[in-house]
């Protein structure tokens, strides 16, 4: 790239800046909104000069919003906990079920394995609305509606195909001879899976887990229908800010900022392992 002319460098810099501005601006704007009152947010014309206030955050964290229309109870912090709990549990269950399944699909060719794997992927083709109504009725009949257990189960529709198909590719990329060599050197099938296949596929498992977590965290429609106030995650809880006395833009913005933080932290943390795993140069091709 050292043959690049100055003009090219400048144009490239401008292009990159434009793209970053385009994608980051909404987040930046929301970040600013979270420190403003509804009045300053809604003034015309908008301005980035304002007196910052922490009332939005205070209201979310204490759970009480004092406004001209009176005091309003906010479930935000318990919603945040629900999101974290539901997403974490869904990913843990998804990994426990999905990783061995991915290994089976990737390594052991059995009759119908492709069909089963494809069926699991096909869960992602249908819009959630398609299954929501029958699911709601079933769940009410068997008493799973509005339970963490039921929600985590339904979240498997989101996380399981994702984990299965990403991790399967990683297992397939491990040369089978490495596992054969380990087995012929005196180890059983289970030991080979634990000591060879799992560590070598770890970057893939980490990537799949992270993606699955983000997908589960961002889920809206399942939780909206299947969970009531005490079980609902932030995505649904944010609806509470659309009140009879107006839309609380400040609180919505602060809620968004707060609910982005856990996934952002997780992504930054997992990134280390992703890069590490990829640069390990596990297998020279």
């Amino acid at each position, binding site marked *: 790239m050292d043959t690049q002319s100055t003009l090219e460098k400048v144009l490239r810099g401008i292009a990159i800046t434009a793209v970053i501005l385009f994608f980051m601006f909404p987040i930046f704007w929301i970040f600013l909104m979270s420190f403003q009152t509804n009045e300053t947010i809604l003034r015309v014309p908008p301005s980035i000069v304002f007196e910052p206030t922490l009332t939005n955050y205070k209201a979310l964290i204490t759970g009480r919003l004092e406004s001209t229309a009176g005091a309003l109870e906010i479930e935000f912090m318990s919603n945040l906990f629900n999101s974290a709990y539901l997403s974490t549990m869904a990913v843990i269950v998804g990994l426990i079920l999905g990783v061995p399944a991915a290994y089976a699909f990737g390594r052991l060719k059995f009759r119908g394995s492709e069909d089963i794997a494809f069926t699991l992927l096909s869960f992602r083709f249908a819009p959630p609305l398609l299954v929501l109504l029958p699911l709601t009725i079933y769940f009410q009949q068997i008493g799973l509606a509005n339970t963490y257990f039921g929600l985590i189960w339904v979240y498997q529709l989101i996380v399981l195909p994702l984990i299965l198909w990403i991790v399967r590719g990683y297992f397939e990329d491990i040369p089978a001879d490495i596992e054969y*060599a380990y087995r012929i050197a005196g180890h059983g099938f289970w030991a080979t899976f634990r000591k060879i296949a799992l560590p070598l596929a770890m970057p893939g498992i980490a990537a799949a887990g992270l993606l699955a977590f983000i997908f589960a965290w961002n889920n809206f429609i399942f939780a909206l229908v299947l969970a009531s106030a005490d079980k609902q995650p932030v995505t649904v809880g944010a609806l509470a800010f659309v009140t009879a006395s107006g839309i609380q833009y400040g609180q919505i913005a602060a809620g968004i900022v707060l609910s982005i933080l856990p996934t952002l932290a997780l992504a930054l943390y997992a990134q280390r392992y992703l890069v590490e795993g990829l640069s390990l*140069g596990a297998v020279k091709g």
Partner: protein
Amino acid sequence: MSDLALEITAVDKFYGPIDTGVHAVKSFDMNVARGDIVALLGSSGCGKTSTLRMVAGFEEVSRGSIKIADREVNRLPPVQRNVAMAFEGYSLYPTVNVRDNIAFALKAKRLPQAQVDARVNEVAEMLEIADILDRIPAQVSGGQQQRASLARALIRDADLYLLDEPMGQLEPQLRTLLRGRIKHFIKERGLTAVLVTHDQTEANALADKIAVMEDGEMQQFASPAEIKERPANLFTGTFIGEPPMNVFQAKVGRADGRIGFHLAGDLALIYPAEVFSAELHKAILGKSEVALGVRPYAVRRVEGGAPAQVVTNQWLGDQSHIAARFAEGTLVLVEHDRARVGVGDQIGVELNPRDLHIFDPDTGDAISHGQELA
């Protein structure tokens, strides 16, 4: 305890359902004596690697029986078969260095460290990888990885050593050197090894017996010399040997105490009948047509021989390969001196009856080698 290290009896391998799936290995029989090196030789897709993997336990045996050291192993997992295996491709554990890769099985057996080190160093020096023992697999070349995989197999105490194309990625010079060393190593310790290869030089150099495979079937199982001198069928005859055996279709005739092979283009090879044994007469006169094989080394140029016209003449540095138009086909002959013939020259060739291999053209089976029945 019998003196067989490996007995493969009537083994079939199907990929997919039995009888309707892909039939990769067909009623395969092979006994390997303790202390022998056997090569499975064939082109790719001939079933040799499938056979090896069934012995190792990575592929299920669809039908038949495999015994290692008098123990039927069909249903045993690889860990219980006490075999060692060297792999063709990338099979080293990527996270540990070459030394630990090689020592892996010994460490699992809890041998004293000094003994492990001594054995690793010995086998590493033999395979010329002593200088890379402390590197991780990603830092060494494909050929070095392959030798490390070979070392990892040879260092073990196993009933049987399975070597899957163990030298495929090595440079020719190194290959020649290591062939000798590996053979010595195996023989000195009285180990039994089964080697899969598509390189006949490697099979000839290393093996006591060669199993020639094609299309899932064993074609011949014999010593390298036997295979070269007495190929069991047309496939083995043309597959083994470089350049390959010349083969011509011939009609057989007999008159005035002479036997004639009538080739295409009105060319006849006439021999006195008494050069062939009586049984051989009977066998070939019963056929209207035979396939006549002769190795390029056995063809002589003589004044007044059967006419042929030179198509190419290549000097390979130590031998001449001459291809000539003969009986509407191509005849290849090899001479050890530089042949002074040019393209288009007419030459005379002589096929000595003791160098002829006669095959049944329908079944491909050998009828005779030289002057005697097969």
